[in-house]
């Protein structure tokens, strides 16, 4: 099955927002998510390839509806559930 991240050459995404932004993160939670990724990978909870796969196998509608670092967060949660570190629903309100 084609994965939604494989968009090279796809048409319809419109113009590029070429705004110059030099801030690496646009909210504190984005930095925390990158920190979580690096910390969990350093502890071998998961590896980079598993993480990529978790992002790339997101359902297309969900992939397109989420921001870059939201995908990271969802992938981390998916892997933590798959590895049994957290239970499904444990993060819900």
């Amino acid at each position, binding site marked *: 099955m084609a994965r939604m991240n494989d968009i*090279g050459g*796809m048409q319809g995404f419109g*113009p590029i927002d070429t705004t110059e932004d030099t801030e690496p993160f*646009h909210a504190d939670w984005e930095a*925390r998510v990158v920190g979580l990724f690096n910390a969990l990978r350093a502890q071998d909870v998961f590896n980079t390839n598993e993480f990529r796969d978790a992002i790339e196998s997101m359902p297309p509608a969900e992939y*397109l509806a989420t921001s870059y670092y939201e995908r990271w967060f969802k992938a981390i*949660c998916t892997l933590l559930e798959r590895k049994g570190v957290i239970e499904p629903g444990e993060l819900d309100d």
Partner: protein
Amino acid sequence: MTSADHHPDTLIARRVRRLETLLEEKGVLSGAQLDEIIDASLSGASPANGARVVARAWTDPAYKSRLLADGTAAVRELGFMEGGFQRLRVVENTDETHNVIVCTLCSCYPLRLLGPSPSWYKSEAYRSRVVREPRAVLAEFGLNLPDDTEITVWDSSAETRYMVLPRRPADTDSMSEAELTGLVTRNALIGTAEL
């Protein structure tokens, strides 16, 4: 509950905090550890590093040869480690050819040499279009190349990262290597600008 609580950013921020707390409770990691890792992940990553590599290549032909032959080893000579396991390939712009880099699948990028990537680099619009209509995309960045300039687009992968070696601007013969470093911009290293 205020309206701000319904903002998607607030919702996700709360979930991220909750996950951090949960992982601390489970003894998987500590908050202090996380702060340290966040600081370390970006420290030393800057387009000034890529600029130094370019200025050296402009002023030292032997270095330039080594850089184009084996980018990973050549940037290490200047003290830059680009990725633990990835290969760096440096592609040279000339009067006839222009290079531009992308990661169509996600966001691979030589972080140490270019600093954090701009949002547009990670956008679906840039990733999907630059491989199909690079000339039009470069024009959106204000870079209008002559029709007979050949454009090569390099699609990054988990194994290989790319950096563009821009053309040295005219009338810079008298400039020092340090002065030349100051001319190099992040977008020129990606290929969405010239100097």
